[in-house]
């Protein structure tokens, strides 16, 4: 038997009631790299992403079959501690969703919940997380202010910093830049390239150029199936399937 990759799905299917949104997908996410999930709206890429940290559990009527492997543990097993697992898999959404708290509290909240009470240690985590999210210099003098006073792009980087604060091994990004202006988008993309050095990153995007710029691997989804999965260069220059090429070209045109 081939050992599954440290982080991978095996024959994963997701159902919403009778509807099968994801059809038997097996794919791996290599370490220290970015995997982009692309495909037309409704192709299931977001559902797939959300299933990786079992956020789909929150949707009434959803269920899954197959496996998600992380370091030899099956995340879909019924005994899995979902709360613990989510600590190891960070997630950032399309619309920035900082907590209605101060900038500092947004970052310190998670670590404190996991038992870090020491003020100095918390200060350190806040600074490191904000630095990793390339936000520290912009907010270091206003940590006590409300996170909602930040601009959209800053809020999004704050959300990334918040996800980093609990030291995840995997970062799931659901169209993290699609609600942002070009400058903020550029910053987020730089950040992704920087962060992948110590993280596995999975990103859903509608922006083909973005997928080409930031990702090492690209997976093309269509109607709940994984049509093609490979190195980004190859997918974008010489895809095996016609349908992949049409989607990518259509977006360029």
């Amino acid at each position: 038997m081939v050992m599954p990759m440290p982080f991978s799905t095996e024959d994963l299917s997701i159902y919403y009631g009778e509807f099968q949104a994801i059809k038997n997908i097996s794919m791996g996410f290599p370490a220290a790299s970015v995997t982009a999930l692309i495909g037309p709206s409704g192709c299931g890429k977001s559902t797939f992403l959300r299933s990786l940290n079992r956020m789909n559990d929150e949707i009434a009527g959803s269920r899954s079959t197959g496996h998600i492997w992380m370091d030899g543990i099956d995340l879909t097993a019924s005994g899995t501690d979902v709360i613990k697992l989510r600590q190891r898999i960070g997630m950032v959404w399309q619309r920035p969703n900082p907590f209605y708290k101060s900038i500092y509290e947004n970052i310190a909240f998670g670590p404190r919940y996991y038992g870090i009470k020491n003020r100095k240690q918390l200060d350190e985590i806040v600074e490191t997380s904000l630095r990793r999210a390339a936000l520290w210099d912009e907010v270091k003098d206003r940590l006590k202010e409300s996170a909602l006073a930040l601009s959209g792009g800053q809020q999004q980087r704050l959300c990334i910093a918040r996800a980093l604060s609990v030291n995840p091994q995997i970062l799931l990004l659901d169209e993290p830049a699609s609600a942002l202006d070009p400058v903020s988008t550029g910053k987020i993309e730089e950040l992704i390239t920087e962060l992948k050095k110590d993280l596995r990153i999975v990103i859903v995007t509608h922006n083909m150029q973005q997928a080409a710029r930031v990702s090492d691997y690209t997976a093309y989804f269509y109607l709940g199936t994984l049509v093609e999965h490979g190195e980004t260069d190859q997918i974008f220059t010489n895809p095996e399937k016609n349908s992949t090429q049409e989607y990518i070209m259509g977006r360029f045109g």
Partner: protein
Amino acid sequence: MTTQTQILRSKARKRAKTADKVATVVIIVFALSIVAILLGLIGFIMFRGLGHISWHFLTSNPQTIREGGGIGPPLFNSLYLLVLTMIITIPLGLGGGIYMSEYAKPGKITSFIRLVVEVLSSFPSIVIGLFGLLVFVNTFELGFSLLAGALALTIFNLPLMVRITEQAFAGVPREQKEAGLALGLSKWKIITSIMLPVAIPSLVTGTILAAGRVFGEAAALLFTSGMTTPPLNFSDWNPLHPRSPLNPLRPAETLATHIWKVNSEGLAPDAIQIAAGASAVLVIMVLLFNLFARWGGRTLYRYMTASKRMN
């Protein structure tokens, strides 16, 4: 042809403009008349009552037959009853509302609970008073007491509190909850630390509404907290002593019941002035409580969310 269409169009536009103007005027008139009625009412109550308010009036005991009675004990009772009622209502209401919004699975049972809450909220208060008389006063042998009154008012207020809590929590953006989940927080932690602060402004509004009803309610209290107050010793604050003002098991007439009593069966020669003065005090109390609760809610919201203002 073209010019004709143009003429027709410009006529239609003119008509739409006129309709718009008329509607605006009508709406403004409605709004102004509501404000006018409200101001008139408050003005009338103040005009009649303010002259009668004095320190003596606010602190002395009511008189049955003689002139010069005050409203000291009823005033205290109103405030104390408010505190007692809120101590029971807020935790129950928060619990029920959070359950309905976050835990209850959509289905027949949940719909049934919601129906019950709604029916309960339209119960006539006199019926709740009679229910309180039968259950709390007689069956539980609480007698005419503050506690019986507070329990009756809890029944009266709980539906409102539950519904407002449910709506306040349902109004918290879903993304907030998701962010908490993705961070690996437990459901309880998300509810108490992420959602509650966001919900506070709505909860404060709800609490003010519920509290206003406590101040104003008379019918539900006539048969539960009673229409008399025993002689109180305002230097004895041990809740267990029978003459202590804090004793929850003593009968207590509130400002609202006092106004009702004075108006309907008052024998004192200055009964009308007393009722007018007490009414003015009641209105001022409600206004003060409103301001205080808003200020408190804003402070709490600021503290919990680090924001500058309540939106």
